[in-house]
């Protein structure tokens, strides 16, 4: 359906959004070396906030985005301080199970508060944009631009801002970072704040063109895994590449191949990547 250019555009939009979701995941992983299964559920929270504030109360969309970013950043700080910090240094298994419990908890609360059915939101931007032979909705264009802006902001933060550089230092070599006086408590909270905030914004952006439900997190976390494996666990630019790759592969296989094969190919590819080059395209060398 649609031209090749259309599929490419869809891939870009999807890919960038996935990248946004995965960036938070990777950030937390690179600092704390552990996997957060609840990440995609935080995406869901962002989506539900959009549903209520924008869909029902008609608050300005950009304002809602800011609320999501700030709100979920606070949630991230709380999670780090009261939950995950207790398990620091205890190995990755406990952390995973804790994040699993958290994921179930958030989904349980969402089930009670929001109900079982999927919710959709009308698009905040209507109209289409035509560039050359490609036509796509203004909505998707805005999504792409916002995603790119946020990703660029993150990159700038990590490269040029002192705090961000400190985070990278911590990710590279924790002991050396301590010696430099970098405070792991502050950095962990910051990493969680940014990571969770990005997840929420990703949900807020994607919900108008898709939908949100209480258990969408369980489905999306798998895509997170796919993305970070392809691009490289622990690498921020790798995550963007992984996200884009996932977007492209998904769009192309779903458009041109029968449904069952699409995911077989995606997961098969991921499995092969893990076997052949576990650190993905740009991942960090050693692990554990």
């Amino acid at each position, binding site marked *: 359906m649609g031209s090749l250019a259309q599929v490419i555009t869809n891939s870009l939009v999807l890919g960038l959004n996935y990248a946004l979701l995965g960036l938070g995941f990777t950030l937390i992983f690179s600092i704390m070396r552990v996997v957060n299964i609840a990440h995609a559920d935080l995406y869901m929270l962002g989506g539900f906030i959009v549903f209520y504030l924008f869909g029902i109360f008609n608050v300005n969309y950009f304002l809602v985005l800011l609320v999501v970013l700030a709100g979920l950043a606070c949630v991230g700080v709380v999670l780090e301080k009261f939950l995950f910090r207790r398990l620091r240094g205890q190995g*990755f298994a*406990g952390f995973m199970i804790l994040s699993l419990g958290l994921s179930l908890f958030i989904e*349980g609360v969402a089930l009670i508060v929001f109900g079982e059915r999927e919710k959709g939101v009308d698009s905040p931007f209507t109209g289409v944009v035509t560039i050359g032979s490609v036509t796509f909705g203004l909505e998707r264009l805005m999504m792409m631009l916002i995603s790119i802006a946020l990703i660029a902001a993150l990159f700038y933060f990590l490269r040029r801002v002192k705090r961000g550089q400190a985070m990278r230092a911590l990710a590279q070599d924790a002991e050396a970072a301590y010696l430099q006086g970098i405070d792991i408590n502050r950095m962990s909270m910051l990493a969680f704040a940014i990571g969770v905030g990005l997840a929420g914004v990703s949900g807020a952006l994607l919900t108008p063109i898709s939908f949100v439900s209480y258990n969408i997190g369980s489905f999306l976390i798998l895509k997170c895994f796919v993305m970070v494996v392809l691009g490289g*666990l622990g690498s921020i630019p790798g995550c963007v590449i992984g996200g884009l790759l996932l977007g492209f592969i998904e769009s192309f296989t779903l458009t041109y191949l029968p449904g069952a094969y699409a995911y077989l190919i995606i997961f098969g590819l991921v*499995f092969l990547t893990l*076997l052949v080059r576990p650190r993905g395209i740009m991942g960090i060398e050693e*692990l554990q």
Partner: protein
Amino acid sequence: MINTIKNLRPLTIATIVLLLVYLVAIPLLFRDNKYVLHVFILCSQVSIVAITVRGIFVCGELTFGQVAFVMVGAYSSAILTTKAGLPFWFALPLSGILAAMFASLVGFPMLRLKGTYFCISSLILTEVLKHAAKALDFLGSNKGFYGIPRPSAIQIGTFTLIPEFTPYDRLPYYFLIALLLVITVAAFWRLDSSPPGRVFRAIQQDDGLAASLGINVIWYKIKAFAISAFFAGLVGSFSAHYMTVFYPESFSVWDSIHYVLYAFIGGMGYLGGPIVGTFALTWLWEFLHAAAGLQMVVFAAVIIVVILFLPGGLFSLEKFLPLWWTRLTRISRGKFEKEKSNGST
């Protein structure tokens, strides 16, 4: 040989009591209650797989892929009985063997990965198998298998060794899976106290050091992987013949994650840990049905609390119990040496 005989301790009293309760008391009490029997059957099934998760954890790896081997067992058993006409009692061990063979094949590249990478690869393995099953027609494609025959009766002359399994009575299934559970526990108990078991624990503690001592780490990990897969395959086969129907969507990555969850919450350091975790959490979930909407939230809260405050799992509460209890439960705690070892690692 002499060593293994020395290592076989007589069954402790607590284990005997538990066996009596599980094999005699509960069937008598709940003979007609299909629901309770069904939950217990589920508990038994999941306990076995949770024990296999622990079986790999003693090598130092966490696997989120046991559902893959359950699937292999289920599909093999279904194909062997429906298409090849084999009776269930032959298909059961064969499915286990096929699952173990598959694990050896897949384990060889997978087990070269460490830590988080291995976890993720095991997770992905399940998804790959599921989508492959959906796409391939001889595996039933999206429809899966239906009309899988129930286990047949075994008669020796006029003596009925094993009665007919019918859709109306859950009891034979209950006993079958309980028996499988006992066999699994016995197998892993023997494995833990045997020389390979000690090698596994050496690998768990420091596999670089183990390798430097001349231990072929990958070889041992594959062995553990295959053994665990065998039992997971048995569960798959049982499940196929219990439900008589399944399709790719019956299996999910989240089942795998639940197996790890139950094993972890119960206590990975103890042989009885996964069983305790499974029974406790499964029954908790069932009891929480009364709470309707709060079911998931309370369940998750319990998990979070246990993980934060009981790093050794539920079983680690045993250190608060008096000494005589500790002596009685030596088997289920998997302690076969005199020295004390701490909980999870």
